[in-house]
């Protein structure tokens, strides 16, 4: 791994804000997790709001029999007129009867279930005993009082770690839910480099679950997996520190760090990745023509903000004004911050009205924000990119690096095409 010339943004003081946050809660991760784990069902124990969120966040309803649902708490559950545990057992039994293909059931805690202190870990233990060996029941919290958006995936994976079998084998564990096509590409690259055996967390099906132990080396593919990282360390596994595999540079640095851990030198990696890396650089260059010199403002959303700002500033020629993240995990993000040139404000948390004041004051060329803010900012004449698309699109590793750059370039290109007819309603900014 090349030594960065400076310490980058690692010394930049972090602006910490708290106030109204315009972010999703951790339940939202279910939207992609239930597709990734094909034998899992996610049962949220919560309110009508939770059910409505999942439906709305999915945007288009996925009617191909979703593998998630909400056990909606009712007045009688809260008033103690019904035994919530008995009710939960009954709903789970009905669900598993209707879906015999389910092998893993996640009981997902929500704000209301946390506030009334419904003990889902004991419920999971009890239900595991009832439904073993066919179904494994785990629990985690995706509540908004504890988790922000992608932290739901972190909580889910962290809950899976203690249940994984033990091994002494020296294996690589690739951690983070990736789209199938991306995962396959990563596995193929690692195979060509000579790293193996490689396991994935989460696996597509329960029987493919990795075993872990003190000789496990793991590399995170997503920057929001702090609790999973801690859980893996508790099992004795060791992390391979690296920037995250976004863009040609990030992917190369990630692969080299992994290879080095397995005793393979950078030259071998360079030889294997020469062709895909050149393709990635060419594809990025096409989008970078639009992005070059433009100023970008990241509002907090998914914790992908810091790695993506590194990609946009180093590979696409953009200038970052503010890079905001819901939570900054100093250890995991250090390799990224080292690579980002000093200059941008680094902020954690949010007070949305104050942050919008900064957006309006600096008038960035592109603002990365949530769906609730995008159209209002566009109406003020500010180009936006919805952050959620960065989580719902294959963006990791070489073959997707061009797509990743294009996601940021498209809103700018579109504005240019529509320039003559864009309403550009400046009066809304007043």
């Amino acid at each position, binding site marked *: 791994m090349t030594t960065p010339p400076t310490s980058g943004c690692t010394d930049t003081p972090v602006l910490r804000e708290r106030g109204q946050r315009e972010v999703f809660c951790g339940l939202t991760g279910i939207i992609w997790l239930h597709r990734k784990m094909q034998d899992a069902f996610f049962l949220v124990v919560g309110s009508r709001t939770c059910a409505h*969120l999942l439906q709305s966040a999915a945007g288009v309803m996925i*009617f191909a029999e979703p593998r998630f*649902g909400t056990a909606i*708490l009712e007045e009688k559950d809260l008033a103690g007129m019904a035994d919530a545990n008995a009710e939960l057992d009954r709903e789970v039994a009905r669900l598993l009867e209707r879906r015999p293909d389910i092998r893993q059931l996640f009981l997902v805690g929500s704000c209301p279930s946390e506030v009334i202190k419904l003990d889902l870990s004991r419920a999971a233990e009890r239900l595991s005993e009832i439904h073993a060996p066919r179904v494994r029941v785990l629990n985690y919290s995706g509540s908004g*009082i504890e988790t*922000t958006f992608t932290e739901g995936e972190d909580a889910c994976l962290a809950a899976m770690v203690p249940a994984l079998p033990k091994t002494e084998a020296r294996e690589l564990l690739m951690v983070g839910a990736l789209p199938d096509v991306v995962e396959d590409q990563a596995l193929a690259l690692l195979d060509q480099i000579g790293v193996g055996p490689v396991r994935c967390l989460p696996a597509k099906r329960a029987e493919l679950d990795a075993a872990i132990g003190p000789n496990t080396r793991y590399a995170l593919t997503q920057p929001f997996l702090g609790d999973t990282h801690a859980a893996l360390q508790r099992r004795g596994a060791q992390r391979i520190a690296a920037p995250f595999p976004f863009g040609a540079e990030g992917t190369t640095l990630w692969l080299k760090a992994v290879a080095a851990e397995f005793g393979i030198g950078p030259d071998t990696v360079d030889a294997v990745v020469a062709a895909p890396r050149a393709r990635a650089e060419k594809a990025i260059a096409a989008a970078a023509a639009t992005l070059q010199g433009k100023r970008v403002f990241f509002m907090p959303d998914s914790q992908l903000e810091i790695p993506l700002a590194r990609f946009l500033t180093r590979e696409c020629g953009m200038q970052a004004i503010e890079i905001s993240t819901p939570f900054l995990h100093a250890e995991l993000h250090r390799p990224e911050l080292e690579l980002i040139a000093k200059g941008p404000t680094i902020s954690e948390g949010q007070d949305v009205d104050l942050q919008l004041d900064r957006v309006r004051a600096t008038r960035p060329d592109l603002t990365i924000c949530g769906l609730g803010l995008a159209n209002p900012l566009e109406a003020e004449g500010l180009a936006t990119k919805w952050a959620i698309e960065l989580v719902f699109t294959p963006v990791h590793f070489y073959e997707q690096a061009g797509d990743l750059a294009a996601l940021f370039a498209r809103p700018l290109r579109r504005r240019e095409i529509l320039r003559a007819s864009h309403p550009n309603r400046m009066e809304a900014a007043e």
Partner: protein
Amino acid sequence: MKLAVWTYEGPPHVGAMRVATGMRDLHMVLHAPQGDTYADLLFTMIERRDHRPPVSYTTFQARDLGADTAGLFMTAARDAHARFDPQALLVAASCTAELIQDDPGGLAETMGLPVPVIPLELPSYQRKENFGADEAFLQLCRALARPMARTERVTCNILGPTALGFRHRDDLAEITGLLSEMGIEVNVAAPMGASPADIARMGAAHFNVLLYPETAESAARWLEREHDQPFTKTIPIGAHATRAFIEEVRALSGSTLAVDESRLRLPWWAASVDSTYLTGKRVFLFGDGTHVMAAAKVARDEMGFEVCGMGCYNREQARPMRALAKEFGLTALITDDYLDVEAAIEEAAPEMIMGTQMERHIGKRLGIPCAVISAPVHVQDFPARYSPQMGFEGANVLFDTWVHPLVMGLEEHLLVMFREDFEFHDAAGPSHHGSKAQPLPTEATAAHAAADEGGVTPPPAAPPSPDSIVWLGCAERELKKIPFFVRGKARRNTEKFAGEKGLREITVDTLYEAKAHYAR
């Protein structure tokens, strides 16, 4: 505890947000954890609003629970007032804040804010979105509407349109235009477009026009009681109902001006011979009570459809819905469980569903076309073009949108005549919808599949036949030759016929005897 996969209505605070977001110069402070802000995107994305909903969320976290969530609420309320300078403030709690019992209304009262503060009680674990909208609007009226002299000329208020409503934007324009033609000015239309100051002067109107009982019936009744304003009971959806609405408004206002019907095309479009094929099309209706009840009458009396099932997801409308269904010789389906709705539709095997976005997906799964007539809304329910449901233009829109999902008349005949053409078969769907025709499976694959199925049992996608009745292979094959849009009905009628005749096996003859029996 009740397992829900999809919901027809959001929680009550989302209903209150629909009222607040539709209005001007009003702000709402919602005591809620982070994540509840998802509701903003309903308005900015689905409805493409160019402003954030006027809602501040207190955003409490787990670590605040033992500490000072009440303090967070007061800070949020003070900041919201200072920043947005509203004429009035709504305060409410979402489902989680309801549990921690901070009493936002009481807290806000102690703060001495210089504007009216209107607390809302929204029982999240009992009630739903429509209740939240209806309650928020009622409390706004109670807190703000003042007794005052009537306007000199006859005016009315229009009650009910909110943000994120099904075609509320265009219905409001259409009905405002209709009233204007009758010489009646709109005093205040609310909640959509009104400010708290407008609500204050609602008492000046002579009567109220209630467009959506779901969101404004409580306010209409309160205004009738407290301000002596009668309100209209007819929902002007369809040509007949629009005329009845005009009569009702004439009786309330004394207006005698003629209303121009030259733009109304539905009656002739339905009467023209091209529409003959619509006769007796079996339709299943599901949605909110108001839209379903109105649509059922239009479907039967103005389109010539046969209504084979109807129901609503909002219990508040269960009573009138049951009464109307009875008049149609049906039993109303009152449920908010979409699996129940799906089962009822499968059982009724209609030729078209008239429902919500949820039924559109049910239709997709069952291979039944669907026209959307009601909320819950989807981005497609906010068309760029003018597309009301109400008034005479609304009637024209109903004709177009209800006919569009169907296979057209002559195409239907050709499909019946040449049902096994490898390119032009019924599974390809209506030709004006642009989906790609999949080649039919060859005879060999079909036979193989039939063998796998044991020859006589229906394929798994088909509704299960009554246990005692068996379809013989030949009858099953004959059934498959019937176009998809009537196959479900044919299967159901045949089984019913066989059951009535005490038959245990269905042959090709049984199929055709049933056809003759049910011929219309």
